[in-house]
C-alpha cells in the first residue's frame, strides 16, 4: 500500500502520487532498455561467435575451452575497467602498457629475493601503481595537460624506468601462488581465476553503478563544468579515476606474470588497443559520459572469442589480423545502429 505524498500545506494528493510513481517506473524501464541496447550488441556478438566456433570445431563449447576463453579474456576484463573509467571522464590512459609491464617486472624482482612475502610484495607493487596513477591524475588536473599527453609521457618514462630497473633484461619468475591462481583449475575444468574475477566484476559494477563515486564519474564525463557547479570535486574524481586505472593495469600485469610465468619488456604493448576496443565495443562513447562496465566485459569476451574463432578458421596471422579489424568495424556499426 503506497503512502500518499504530502506537499507543504499537508494536502495529500494520491492521484499525483500515482502518476509520479508510474512515470518514475516508466522512466526507469526506459533507462534500463537504453542500457540494454547499449550493451547487448557485444553479448550478441559473443553468442554469435560461440555458435560459429562450435560449427567449426564441435569441441568449442566444452567447458575447458570456455574456461580458457575466460582466462584469456580476463586480462582485458580487468584492465578494461580502468581504461573504461578514463574514457568515461573523456580521457584515455595510454600508460597502460608500461604500468602492466612495470608491475610484472617489479613483482618478479621482489619475488626473486629470498625473504619475499607474496602479500607484502603484491601490496607494494600495487601501491606503486596507484602512485603512478595519482601522478597521471595530478598532471592532468594541476598542470592542465591533456590526458593523452600526460599518460603518454608516463608510459614513456616507465618504459625507460623498466629498462633501467632490469638493465634491459627482466628476470625472475612468478610467485607460486600467482601461478596457481592463473593456471590452476577447480573440479578439473573450471579455472580458479573465475572466482576472484567474478568478485572483481561485481565490485567494479557496484563501484560504477551504485556508489556516489560512480555517479560523479559519469557527471564529470558528461560535463566537467556542470559537475563542478553541482559541487563535485572534479579534480579529485579525475585523480581517483587515473589511480584506479593504474591499479587495474597493475593487476593486469600481475595476472600476465602469473599466466606466463615470466616478465618481459613490451609485454603490455599488445593490450592497449584491445582495452580501448573492448570499452568502445561495449557501448561507451569515446568522448565520455556514456558506457557501462558490463558492456566492457562483453567487449573483452567478444574480442577474445573473435581471436579464438579466427585462430580456428585460419592459420595465417595475416588473415586473422585483417578479419579482426573488419569484424571490429562491423561490431562498431552494429553498436551505432
Amino acid at each position, binding site marked *: 500500500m503506497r503512502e500518499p505524498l504530502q506537499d507543504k500545506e499537508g494536502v495529500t494528493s494520491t492521484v499525483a502520487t500515482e502518476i509520479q510513481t508510474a512515470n518514475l517506473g516508466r522512466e526507469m524501464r526506459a533507462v534500463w532498455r537504453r542500457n540494454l541496447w547499449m550493451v547487448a550488441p557485444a553479448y550478441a556478438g559473443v553468442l554469435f561467435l560461440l555458435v560459429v566456433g562450435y560449427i567449426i570445431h564441435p569441441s568449442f563449447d566444452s567447458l575447458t575451452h570456455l574456461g580458457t576463453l575466460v582466462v584469456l579474456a580476463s586480462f582485458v576484463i580487468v584492465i578494461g575497467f580502468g581504461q573504461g573509467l578514463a574514457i568515461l571522464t573523456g580521457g584515455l590512459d595510454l600508460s597502460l602498457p608500461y604500468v602492466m609491464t612495470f608491475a610484472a617486472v617489479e613483482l618478479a624482482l621482489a619475488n626473486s629475493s629470498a625473504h619475499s612475502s607474496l602479500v607484502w610484495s603484491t601490496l607494494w607493487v600495487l601501491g606503486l601503481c596507484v602512485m603512478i596513477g595519482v601522478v597521471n591524475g595530478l598532471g592532468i588536473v594541476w*598542470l592542465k*595537460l591533456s590526458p593523452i*599527453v600526460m599518460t603518454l609521457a608516463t608510459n614513456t618514462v616507465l*618504459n625507460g624506468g623498466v629498462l633501467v630497473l632490469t638493465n634491459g633484461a627482466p628476470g625472475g619468475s612468478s610467485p607460486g601462488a600467482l601461478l596457481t591462481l592463473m593456471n590452476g583449475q577447480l573440479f578439473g575444468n573450471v579455472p580458479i581465476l573465475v572466482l576472484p574475477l567474478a568478485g572483481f566484476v561485481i565490485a567494479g559494477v557496484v563501484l560504477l553503478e551504485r556508489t556516489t563515486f560512480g555517479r560523479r564519474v559519469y557527471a564529470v564525463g558528461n560535463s566537467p563544468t556542470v559537475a563542478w557547479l553541482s559541487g563535485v570535486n572534479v579534480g579529485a574524481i579525475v585523480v581517483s579515476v587515473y589511480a584506479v586505472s593504474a591499479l587495474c593495469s597493475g593487476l593486469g600485469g600481475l595476472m600476465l606474470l602469473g599466466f606466463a610465468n615470466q616478465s618481459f619488456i613490451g609485454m603490455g604493448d599488445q593490450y592497449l588497443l584491445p582495452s580501448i576496443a573492448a570499452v568502445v*565495443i561495449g557501448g561507451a562513447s*569515446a568522448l565520455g559520459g556514456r558506457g557501462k562496465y558490463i558492456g566492457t566485459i562483453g567487449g573483452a569476451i567478444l574480442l577474445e572469442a573473435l581471436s579464438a574463432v579466427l585462430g580456428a578458421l585460419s592459420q*595465417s596471422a*595475416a588473415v586473422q589480423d585483417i578479419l*579482426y579489424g573488419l569484424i*571490429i568495424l562491423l561490431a562498431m556499426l552494429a553498436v551505432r545502429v
Partner: protein
Amino acid sequence: MRGPARPIGTTSLTLLLQAVKRNHVTTFVLSLAVFLLLLKTLLQGQGLSRYALTSSVDGSLVVGIAAMGETLVILAGGFDLSVGGIISFLNVVLATHLGFSPAGEMGGVALILALGAALGLCNGLLVVSLHLQPIIATLATSFVWSGAALLVLNQPGGVVPASFVNALTGDWGPVPAGLIVACAAAGVWYAICRHRYGTFLYASGGDPEAAAANGVPVGRTLLITYTLAGLFYGGAAVFLTAQTAGGDANIGAPLLLPVFAAVVIGGTVFGGGQGNAVASLLAGFILDLIGEVLFVLGVASFYTDIFEGLVLVAAVLATTLAAALAGRRREHAGATAR
C-alpha cells in the same frame, strides 16, 4: 594572401617579432631543435659536420613526416591510430614492387603516395560517411592494414635497388636529400595552409558546429584531411623504405607512440583547431636529437625514454606558457599557421 601594408616606422625587427609572436609555438620548437643541435655539436667536440646533420635529419624524418600527417587529422578534431599499419603496408608494397630504373623508382614512389592517400580516404569514409568514432575506426583499420602487410610479405625482405636508397639518403648536390624531402613536406603543408581548405581545416577542428553554420563543408574537409594524412604517411613510408633498404611488415607498429609524441611536442592540441604540421616535423627532429645528445653524453640508452617522457611534459608546459605570454589562449580559426 598578403599581410597589411607596412605602416611608417615599422622596422624589419618589429615585423620579425610580430611573426614570432604569431607563430610562437613553431618558434619555440625551432629554437629547441637548434639548441639541441648546437648542444650535440658542442658536446661532440667536432664541428657541425654535414654527415652529422644528415644522419640527424634522416633519423627523424620518418617520424616527422608521419607526424605531419597525424597533425592534419588531429587539427581536424580527429584521431588516427592506423599510422603504423598504413606505413607497414606501404613499406612492404614498395619493397616488393620497386622497379629498377629511374622511371620505375619514381613510378613506385608515385604508387605509394597514391596508395597512402587511398588508405587515408578509407579511414575518412569510415569516420565521415559511416559516422564511426575515429579512435575505433582507425584502430580497426590498423589491424586490417597490418594484416595486409603480413599477407604481402610475411618475412622481412623485399628488394630495394641501391640507386633508390642512395637517392634518398645521399646528397643532391651540396644538400642532403633528407633536408630536401623535409622542405618538400613543409612546402606541401604551407600550400595546404594557403588554400581555402586550410581555413576549413582549422575551422572544422576548432568548432565543427560553428564552422558548419558558417558554410564550411565539414564532412568534405574531414575526408580530404584523412586522405592528405595518408599521403604524408606514404611519404614517410617511401623514406623508411630507402632507409631500411627493405620491407618489414612489423616496422610500422612501434611508430605510433613516437608520432604522437612528436605531434604533442609540436604544440598541436588534441581536440583540434590549434597547432601546425611544421612544428611536428621539427618535434620529430627534437625527439631524435634527445637520443643523440644523451648518447654523446654517455648516458645509457635506457635513460633515453625517461628523458623523452620528461621532455614531452616540459614541451607541452612550455607551449602553454608561451601561449599565455603571447597573450592569447586560442588561435582564432582559419588564422595563419602557428
